[in-house]
């Protein structure tokens, strides 16, 4: 022991070179992890279970601190340019900072929504926010990763916390089921991803992204089976994480079963992280072999666009519909990646940023609309919302129109950006498919909006029932515990709507469950999301510039 100490204090002993750690480059994720660990440790020091409010406070403070740190990072990157730090493991560039900002914002909004949700569902303790912050730090790590194994670590930090979050509402059996499905398929996709890393490592001799790019640019490989297999497996792994068709089958069940704030978080943060890594790996590292992967991305984009839009039409559950809508959005983001140009990447980034607000805001509305115990997630539950709570209905309609890509919303510019990036690289087929799918998708967004604004029981349920060929929605689903009215609706389909129209006053068709309670913080999130969607839809300059600059610094 004493000889060891002697060795340590004498300057003559052998030295070990340690890499320089640039703490600024990892500051946002350190803040997130630090916040999570501090909250967990402090909560275990008290005999009493900490209230939900403490968790919300710490999570919001950590998100805001991460946001401020990211602004400092942005300043550093703008003045000194892109850097590779911590022994090549972390890329510190505009792309990285952009993702940190997106994730921090999504985390902040989710923390505020979760506050109301946890109070309503009677879940105590800070664990929800601890897990969410951990998960967010994983997404941040994926955005910053410059090495395949760091991407894998980020992916797992993101996913493992999300598996638990999906199971968070232990009073609902669906929640556990969603978590198990997510876990089995997530574990499967991670294993596929790791095997892809192993094969890529074997083919190129490194897991470091710039070194892989360097190797590929110097070596001409006619047909390297190991590299191609590695590429394919990496794509399958990413495909599962972003839920691109045909790797999407887990997402409707998981979106439906998970607590609504978690679903919004999943759609925003998990996708932002996975897309960040996907873009960085394929566009920058495998850019020289893009002829090999572009056709696969092309197929994934077409399938996601069409399957997402068409299957969403047939859904009666709002969360399932949003899951398929999210698959449709993945197709759009893949358009920008398929173009594999700086413009395409910037369009994809802009899409991810605007989608974060749209989807988290939408799930804020869905959270409050589901009422106590998450029972009101059917489209028919939204009928007549505009009469009871016109402001909420209007806000949700704006968010839905934004997702549909209506002009004067950020969604329009996002869709325009990726499609024009495709057109710039002569990807006309993909551009046409995208526009057709946007038209199909507009139908189900508008159907939900029309349902909210239609009088109770007349207009909104007609497309619902016509597509599914079932009886009156209020009668067919007694498990929701909503009081139902028999009589005229029993005969089913369009007839029932007609009878309601002629026989009875519209308001008696569905018993009014009264206005939903909207906690102040959730209202704030909805307001911010709507304001962002509309203001930056009309004045798109700042965000477009931001996304554009984020790719200029791309190494």
């Amino acid at each position, binding site marked *: 022991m004493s000889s060891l100490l002697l060795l340590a204090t004498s300057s003559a002993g052998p030295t070990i070179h340690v890499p320089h750690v640039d703490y600024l480059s990892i500051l946002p994720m350190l803040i997130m992890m630090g916040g999570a660990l501090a909250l967990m440790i402090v909560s275990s020091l008290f005999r009493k279970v900490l209230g939900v409010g403490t968790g919300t406070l710490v999570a919001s403070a950590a998100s805001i601190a991460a946001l401020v740190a990211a602004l400092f990072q942005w300043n550093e990157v703008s003045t000194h340019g892109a850097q590779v730090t911590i022994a090549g493991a972390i890329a510190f560039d505009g792309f990285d900072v952009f993702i940190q900002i997106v994730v921090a914002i999504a985390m902040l909004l989710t923390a505020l929504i979760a506050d109301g949700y946890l109070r309503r569902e009677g879940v105590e303790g800070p664990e929800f926010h601890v897990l969410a912050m951990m998960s967010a730090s994983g997404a941040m790590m994926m955005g910053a990763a410059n090495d395949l194994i760091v991407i*894998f670590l980020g992916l797992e930090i993101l996913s493992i916390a999300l598996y638990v979050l999906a199971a968070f509402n232990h009073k609902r059996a669906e929640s556990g089921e969603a978590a198990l499905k997510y876990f089995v398929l997530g574990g499967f996709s991670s294993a596929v991803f790791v095997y892809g890393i192993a094969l890529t490592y074997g083919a190129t001799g490194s897991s470091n992204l710039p070194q892989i790019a360097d190797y590929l640019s110097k070596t001409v490989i006619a047909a390297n089976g190991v590299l191609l297999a590695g590429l394919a497996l990496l794509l399958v792994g990413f495909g599962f994480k972003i839920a691109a068709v045909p790797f999407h089958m887990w997402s409707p069940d998981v979106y439906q079963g998970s607590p609504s704030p978690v679903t919004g978080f999943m759609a925003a943060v998990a996708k932002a992280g996975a897309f960040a890594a996907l873009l960085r790996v394929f566009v920058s590292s495998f850019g020289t072999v893009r002829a090999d992967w572009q056709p696969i991305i092309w197929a994934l984009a077409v399938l996601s666009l069409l399957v997402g839009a068409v299957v969403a039409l047939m859904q009666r559950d709002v969360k399932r519909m949003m899951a398929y809508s999210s698959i449709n959005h993945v197709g759009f983001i893949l358009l920008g990646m398929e173009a594999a140009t700086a413009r395409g990447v910037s369009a994809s980034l802009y899409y991810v940023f605007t989608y974060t607000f749209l989807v988290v805001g939408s799930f804020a509305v869905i959270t409050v609309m589901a009422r106590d115990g998450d029972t009101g997630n059917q489209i028919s539950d939204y009928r007549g919302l505009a009469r009871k709570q016109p402001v909420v209905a209007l806000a949700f309609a704006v968010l839905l129109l934004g997702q549909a890509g209506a002009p004067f919303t950020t969604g329009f510019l996002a869709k325009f950006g990726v499609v024009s990036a495709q057109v710039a690289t002569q990807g006309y087929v993909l551009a046409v498919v995208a526009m057709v799918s946007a038209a199909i998708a507009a139908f189900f967004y508008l159907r939900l909006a029309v349902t909210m604004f239609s009088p109770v029981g007349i207009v909104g349920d007609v497309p619902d029932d016509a597509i599914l060929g079932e009886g009156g929605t209020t009668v067919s689903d007694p498990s929701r515990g909503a009081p139902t009215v028999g009589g005229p609706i029993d005969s089913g389909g369009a007839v029932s709507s007609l009878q309601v129209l002629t026989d009875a006053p519209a308001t008696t068709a569905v018993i009014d469950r009264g206005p939903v309670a909207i906690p102040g913080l959730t209202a704030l999130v909805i307001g911010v999301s709507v304001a962002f969607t509309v203001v930056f839809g009309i004045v798109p300059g700042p965000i477009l510039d931001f996304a554009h600059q984020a790719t200029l610094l791309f190494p």
Partner: protein
Amino acid sequence: MTINAGWYLSLGVVLFSIGALGVLIRRNVLVMFMCVELMLNAANLTFVTFARMLHDIGGQVLVFFVLVVAAAEVVVGLGIVVAIFRRRANTTADDLHLMKG
């Protein structure tokens, strides 16, 4: 005695395929977990083999990351299984069918 590295890589492919098929075919959740572990270990074997072929210590270090992550994943997975199947008789994935569409 020398063994061609190709055998190790082939064993990796075989293990990975058995694991992947197992996840897709078997219906017991615990067996599905084991199959995921098999896939991860196939990747580990491939990492070590390539590291020896390339004379690069990096590949062997990566195995530790994968091992740690696999352990963390199992902890969470078994927790979820226990939480769900506390009220059920068996661990068959086909019994989980509350959500459809």
